């Protein structure tokens, strides 16, 4: 799959990603309360936390879908490149265009002004890599949710992004589809794309994480290498979460 490796072959990576005092408020409430962190290439970062912690918001802020109300997002490696063109995102529910599987991938590639021959080669490669080649001419909307999510991944992968954001990509999938998706994520990571993914599924986090960013109520509690996090987290909240005892609505913790 040489065509899919080395996303930065043409240009240097836009990483590392620096979050400096990131704040986001809406509807009178502060939902992201000052997050500072650096995400570097070469490790799969999992954003972990209970529901309502702000994981989805954080990913959208990093990807540029919404603007922070305070603080900055800095792509430290992006000298003169538009960072938006070197990222991709997969959402919890796949958004499919009303056209064929192959055409969906082609759509994303055409936005990057690639030549037809290049596009066709990449489409062939990603569809084969994700096991969707046999569906290439079928309407994308007729695929199962699992296959659509695989297509969303293929589509993002074809763009050869430096960074791939994933917002709870398997939350709507059954275990088999979840496994298939995780496999693809690992392959994308192996090909050189930085993975930044949110999940509330502990088992999934254990399987995929190289480092964990633990969020709770809009704050970054800790950013820890995975082996350390899952055995001896530094913060109390993380500990409670791992034990299944963290209830975000309550200030107290139930024993």
């Amino acid at each position, binding site marked *: 799959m040489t065509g899919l490796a080395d996303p930065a072959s043409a240009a240097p990576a836009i990483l590392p990603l620096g979050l400096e005092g990131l704040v986001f408020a809406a509807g009178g409430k502060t939902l992201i309360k000052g997050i500072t962190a650096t995400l570097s290439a070469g490790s799969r970062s999992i954003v972990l936390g209970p529901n309502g912690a702000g994981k989805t918001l954080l990913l959208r802020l990093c990807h540029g879908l919404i603007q922070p109300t305070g603080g900055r997002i800095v792509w430290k490696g992006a000298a003169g490149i538009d960072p938006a063109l070197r990222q991709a995102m997969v959402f919890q529910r796949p958004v499919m265009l009303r056209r064929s599987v192959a055409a969906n991938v082609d759509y994303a590639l055409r936005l990057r002004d690639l030549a037809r021959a290049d596009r066709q080669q990449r489409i062939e490669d990603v569809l084969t890599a994700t096991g969707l080649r046999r569906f290439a001419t079928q*309407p994308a909307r007729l695929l199962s949710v699992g296959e659509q999510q695989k297509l969303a991944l293929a589509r993002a992968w074809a763009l050869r992004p430096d960074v791939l954001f994933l917002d709870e990509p398997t939350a709507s999938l059954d275990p088999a589809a979840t496994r298939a998706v995780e496999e693809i994520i690992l392959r994308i990571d192996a090909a050189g794309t930085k993975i930044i993914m949110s999940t509330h599924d502990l088992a999934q986090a254990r399987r995929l994480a190289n480092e964990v960013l633990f969020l709770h109520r809009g704050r970054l509690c800790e950013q820890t290498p995975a082996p350390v996090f899952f055995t001896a987290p530094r913060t109390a909240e993380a500990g409670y979460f791992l034990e299944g005892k963290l209830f975000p609505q309550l200030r107290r913790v139930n024993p």
Partner: protein
Amino acid sequence: MSDLADAFAAAAMLIWSLDQDLVGIVLLSLRVTLTAMAIAAVIGLPLGGALAVFRFPGRSAILITINALMGLPPVVVGLIVYLMLSRAGPLGALGLLFTPAAMILAQAVLITPIIAALSCQTISGLWEEYREQLQSFAARRGDALATLLWEGRIALLTALLAGFGRASAEVGAVMIVGGNIDHVTRVMTTTIALETSKGNLSLALGLGIILISLAMGVAGGTYALKLAAERQRSA
């Protein structure tokens, strides 16, 4: 209800004999309304889509105006277009008055708001669905708009049909700007008005039946198109 029976008989007789005048009138009606619909589509579909996707000062005012204009009385539109195209008016030198071109223009003005409003509604719904994904692809708003117009093509077809219906049913605008000139600007609705004014009620009603049948044909054809599109997707 002998009038109704006479009307059906009159309609049947006209169709059976393939009355030359009738054929000419029907073709002209279709030409005027279809052309007006095409023009209104070219303007209204992107306009409605742009209103759905872009944000700019005055957007709400434009939206409200377009929705209000959907209720424009055809005769008022005809009057305004007449005053524009009249020799004594600003566009008089074009010499368009009392020609099919004037009728096309008037009907296009009449139905563009409908198509724009329905397009805006359709595209708004699609934008909500696709917005984040398209933003993720770093698609420019203009590209996104074009994409949504294509994605929503089935629903937008219904908008076009609504416009076609309104145009083919109106008589006020085409009467004033066309002049109902025999063999030149006489269409189905103005013929019905004329025959009614002569007291030829059965004939007028018969023509009405033909007009409704034409409209049903168009609606049926559109429905078949949609079905074919659906079937193609699930093939």
